[in-house]
């Protein structure tokens, strides 16, 4: 180990901790004991870090926060969650309430006795779509990451082929050549695997979710010539099917219009 490597490792050395279980750090420490310049550098850094730690830890939490946590968490868990949650803003709570009402309405429509014909593909697609919405939201928030970052069409096609087991032409069914690929991610929804491909077209960010429609029939999901447009919070989505594959193209509202999305769907489908 040379001095530069030792410095690199020791930049994460915790003063007063020892890091005994880390052989690399121990090796770097051993080098510091022998090398005067490195030893002085480390002492300087440790003094700085100790000072920082002391002062950062001097910051006192607000009086009553401890009790607020114990009482607040209890209230939120014990009563209606919306009433107990004071965390973000009321608009979020209202938006959630609106989503719930719409969800109940849509649910009632779907489950109405006069609509009890075979809709398993629709349920599957709704589940896959909701799952994709959640993951795309997390991607935007930086909470989750792409499984593969690539701008190569063939790599993305290979990724999709590997993810979907039905032997469907999922990778070949879309024309990815005109877009600027960013990468892709695979997720497991309750009803099967969903792949998400993120890309830009004319500067606008899109996400293409692909899932398999297992029973392979049912007319409810429209074809690519008339995709079903829906809104999911900040996301705008167009859903269509190609044989046994369902696709949902997402974008952020404000980023692209419905017309942009329709154009994009036409461009993607081959």
């Amino acid at each position, binding site marked *: 180990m040379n001095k530069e490597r030792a410095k690199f490792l020791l930049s994460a050395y915790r003063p007063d901790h020892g890091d005994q279980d880390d052989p690399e750090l121990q090796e770097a420490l051993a080098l510091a004991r022998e090398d005067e310049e490195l030893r002085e550098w480390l002492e300087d850094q440790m003094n700085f870090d100790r000072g920082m730690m002391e002062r950062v830890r001097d910051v006192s939490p607000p009086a009553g926060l401890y009790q607020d946590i114990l009482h607040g968490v209890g209230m939120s868990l014990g009563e209606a969650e919306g009433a107990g949650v004071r965390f973000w803003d009321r608009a979020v709570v209202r938006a959630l309430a609106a989503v719930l009402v719409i969800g109940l309405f849509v649910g009632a429509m779907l489950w109405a006795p006069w609509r009890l014909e075979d809709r398993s593909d629709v349920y599957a697609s709704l589940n896959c779509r909701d799952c994709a919405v959640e993951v795309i939201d997390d991607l935007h928030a930086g909470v989750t990451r792409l499984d593969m970052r690539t701008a190569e069409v063939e790599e993305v096609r290979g990724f999709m082929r590997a993810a979907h087991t039905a032997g469907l032409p999922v990778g070949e069914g879309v024309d990815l050549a005109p877009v600027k690929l960013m990468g892709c991610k695979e997720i497991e929804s309750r009803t099967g695997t969903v792949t998400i491909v993120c890309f830009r077209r004319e500067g606008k960010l899109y996400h293409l979710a692909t899932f398999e429609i297992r029973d392979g029939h049912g007319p409810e999901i429209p074809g690519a010539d008339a995709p079903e447009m829906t809104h999911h919070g900040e996301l705008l989505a167009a859903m269509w099917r190609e044989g046994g594959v369902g696709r949902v193209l997402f974008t*952020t509202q404000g980023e692209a219009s419905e017309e942009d999305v329709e154009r994009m769907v036409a461009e993607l489908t081959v």
Partner: protein
Amino acid sequence: MGVDGFVPATEFIDTTMASAEFEQIVDRYYGNLYRFALSLAKTEEQAADLTQQTFFIWAKKGHQLKDRTKVKSWLFTTLHREFLKYIRRSSRMEIGEVAEYRPEAPTVGHDGEEKSDHAYLLGLIRELDEAYRVPLMMFYTEDFSYKEIAKALDIPIGTVMTRLSRGRNQVREKLEKRPVTRGGKVVEFREQKRRTGNE
């Protein structure tokens, strides 16, 4: 049931986690979690809300964590995730833009000349890019090892090293450049020396 219809958390979390354990965990971590939140959020109120939100999630889901030695990582990771979700919702940031988010001017210790050392220092840290701020605060508040930081933030170990080093250097540079008006040095480190080599 507590006073005024207020129900203590401990009456509700028995099914998921022992109340004594919950209180113990809150007691152990709420201070440092709040400090970490303060380095991320815009205001003290938001930092307190983030801390409270984190324990709310812990009360609901903490029982799923089988390895209790990972409570610290779980709490800090959850708080960071909640922060990212919050800024995404509030400002509609796009992928990649979160890293450029910085809190507004520090609100801690805004009492002019009387501003304390720790508030001043925290203000400097809050000026750092989030990429440096988060690992640095995990390191300084709770003694996270670089491996723990890498795992919690889902970034390579080498990146953690680099960010710790650069974040530390940026704070030092800010400390060296800024004149301090109250009684000499604001941060007097023991045997503080000029940096040497190419740190």
